[in-house]
């Protein structure tokens, strides 16, 4: 059966991913269910919604101190433009296709993200849970291998 292409949004955003930043981005991009509860997509064929937030933790290993953990104020994310967003999108399209997801949103921060703030957000809708869980693990692995984003620690 021919399927309507699943909506995919993959973007690098110049701020931490607060709820307001997320909502503003989805709205700006005309995302179909920006304000709807997760399950209320039109087709009602979605059985699982999975959401991952990557958060800046208080401590990071400091390579210049032999890898011992040191207190952070923030991480400064640097992206190689426009390749970073392009790779993020390539991975998103690949994974949506491979796992037959119903939709995918991937947002990554550029610039300063403070401790406790969200730097990476991944939302997947899927008919069944197994695909979404497998797809999420794979997405994050691919992100960490292929998306040209680097973090610079800002120590306390």
């Amino acid at each position, binding site marked *: 059966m021919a399927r309507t292409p699943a909506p995919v949004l993959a973007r690098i955003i110049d701020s931490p991913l607060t709820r307001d930043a997320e909502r503003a981005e989805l709205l700006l991009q005309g995302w179909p269910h920006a304000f709807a509860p997760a399950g209320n997509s039109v087709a009602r064929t979605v059985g699982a919604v999975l959401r991952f937030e990557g958060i800046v933790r208080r401590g990071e290993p400091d*390579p210049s101190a032999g890898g011992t953990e040191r207190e952070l104020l923030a991480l400064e*994310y640097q992206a*190689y433009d426009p390749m*970073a967003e*392009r790779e993020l999108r390539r991975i998103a399209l690949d994974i949506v296709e491979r796992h037959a997801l119903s939709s995918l949103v991937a947002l*990554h921060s550029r610039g300063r993200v403070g401790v406790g703030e969200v*730097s990476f957000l991944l939302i997947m809708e899927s008919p069944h849970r197994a695909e979404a869980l497998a797809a999420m693990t794979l997405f994050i692995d691919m992100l*960490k291998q292929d998306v*040209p984003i*680097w973090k610079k620690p800002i120590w306390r």
Partner: protein
Amino acid sequence: MMEVEVLVFGAAAIHVKGGNVVVTVGDRPTVRDVLAALHEQHPDLRFAMPPIETGRLAVNHVFATAEHPVRAGDEIALITLVGGG
């Protein structure tokens, strides 16, 4: 002979001024040739470099493998040890 500028990021960039290095390669170079020249001419970056035979570089913002030709004017980048997420 030709000079190729290679953009360098992240941890690898700590050892580099201005965010790029220049390597000298023969005519009609491939990604493999540029990687070999990086290994030879910038040993400081070896810790961050992919293997010459199996490694990849980004050529004009797309990952390219060893056989890919590198032409004058291409934007070449060494992309390793990324840290997103």
